[in-house]
């Protein structure tokens, strides 16, 4: 089952479709008529295979109010099953474990980025308490959402054998509820982050210099940067885009079948899962560079103050601006 790739399946399906299309030269309606031209009541007019060639799902009329039940057969369910159990498992494992390996290599090969000039002992304010609240609200909810979300896909592989079915089921039930409700904290956090930081994340010419110099990672020298460098800006915009994608698809899943059919629900889950997996990998890198990967970085979000030398090395333009403002006696964030 898992050996056959989607490509091979698609190829086979297309070949079969082409052959059947060639065979179906005689219009189906002509076969339903008797010699006198009247409709033939006995003829097997509607054939399942013919209907499935016309449309991906067979729908009809039902006598009950539940409109979802009018979809008689949707073979795409098996395709979605394959995505969830094969594709997503592989993509998720490769992307997330791959990022962990890359970060481990970065730590052991490149090592921790030190403050070259050492600590000055002087501090300068970088993030206000309001900014830190927005960051940590988003961060904490993201970690909770990430772990409870991964549990839906990988829990039965990793946790179920350890916990046993009863305990794991109780845990998964709680994780599902937590995932559904913590989502609102994430939405709020992301909105706050975007409204607070969007003006400092607009791309500027200096970002090109920063990228050309490899962000200071490659040549081990410090690239010019304003309040946020090009790497941080990339995280900001990716978080905004990825966040929007998981929020929209997540709310479709949270309120199932409101204006969506079975195909849209499947698509929403595919988008939600794939974007979430990439998002987790991105945030793993973000966590690494903000803690282990760089000396003096964590305190920016921890206490809100950074060492003067750290600021000089990583955000020289921002520091210059800030010092100028302070001389003019204007307190800024």
């Amino acid at each position: 089952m898992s050996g056959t790739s989607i490509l091979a399946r698609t190829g086979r399906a297309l070949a079969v479709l082409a052959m059947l299309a060639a065979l179906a030269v005689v219009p189906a309606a002509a076969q339903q008529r008797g010699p006198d031209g009247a409709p033939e009541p006995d003829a097997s007019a509607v054939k399942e295979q013919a209907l499935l060639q016309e449309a991906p799902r067979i729908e009809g009329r039902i006598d009950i109010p539940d409109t979802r039940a009018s979809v008689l057969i949707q073979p795409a369910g098996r395709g979605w099953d394959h995505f969830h159990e094969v594709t997503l498992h592989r993509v998720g494992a490769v992307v997330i474990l791959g990022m962990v390996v890359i970060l481990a290599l970065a730590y052991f090969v490149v090592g921790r980025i030190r403050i070259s000039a050492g600590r000055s002992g002087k501090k300068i304010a970088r993030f206000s308490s309001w900014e830190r609240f927005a960051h940590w609200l988003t961060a904490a909810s993201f970690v909770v959402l990430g772990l409870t979300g991964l549990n839906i896909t990988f829990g039965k592989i990793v946790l179920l054998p350890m916990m046993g079915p009863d305990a794991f089921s109780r845990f998964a039930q709680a994780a599902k509820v937590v995932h559904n409700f913590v989502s609102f904290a994430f939405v709020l956090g992301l909105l706050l982050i975007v409204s607070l930081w969007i003006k400092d994340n607009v791309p500027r010419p200096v970002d090109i210099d920063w990228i050309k110099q490899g962000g200071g990672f490659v040549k081990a020298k410090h690239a010019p940067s304003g309040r946020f460098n090009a790497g941080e800006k990339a995280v900001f915009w990716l978080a905004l885009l990825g966040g929007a994608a998981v929020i929209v698809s997540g709310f479709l899943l949270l309120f199932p079948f409101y204006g969506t059919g079975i195909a849209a629900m499947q698509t929403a889950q595919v988008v939600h899962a794939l974007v979430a997996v990439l998002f987790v990998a991105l945030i793993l890198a973000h966590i690494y560079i903000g803690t282990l990967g760089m000396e003096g970085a964590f305190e920016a979000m921890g206490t809100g103050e950074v060492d003067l030398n750290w600021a000089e090395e990583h955000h020289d333009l921002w520091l210059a601006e800030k010092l100028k403002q302070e001389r003019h006696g204007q307190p800024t964030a």
Partner: protein
Amino acid sequence: MARMKFLCDADRCIDCNACVTACKNENEVPWGINRRRVVTIHDGEPGERSVSMACMHCTDAPCASVCPVSCIFPTDDGVVLHSKDLCIGCGYCFYACPFGAPQYPKVGNFGSRGKMDKCTFCAGGGGTEVSGSLEEYRKYGANRLAQGKLPLCAEMCSTKSLLAGDGEIIAEIYKERVLKRGYGSGAWGWMTAYHEGIAT
């Protein structure tokens, strides 16, 4: 060992919904849930067909495969059962099911669907309840299979359109019918459910 399957001969189904009613009554199915339903294709047009559909008890059941808590499983008879004690009501089995079989007692906002309910082939439940016990009946419905009986929907089908039983036997019955009357619209859902159709 038999491999239990359903087969709806759409050329015989008259959309009387007796199978739906029989199922609801026999299994005391919760309000709002229809384990079996009849869908009419090309309603009112020449050659319209009605198909009675419930859980097809698939080979490599996609619902069982996607279930995040692995609470759905096939029995030795090929009947796909689930445990309502383990179900977390995530709704994934409904997305994966090609036949729209899994249903939930509640609307489902904020993931509040409740425990999934679906056709059990009148074979009781997949939980820890004793086979044929009152607890099992209340949670999952009748266990007719344990009494040597087939699902009631098929047993009381007025035109014998709906067949339930060992896959090979019901396929043989259907093939004979098609041979005798000269036409057949196919074993609906078989290709999707069992990876094999019945040549007609």
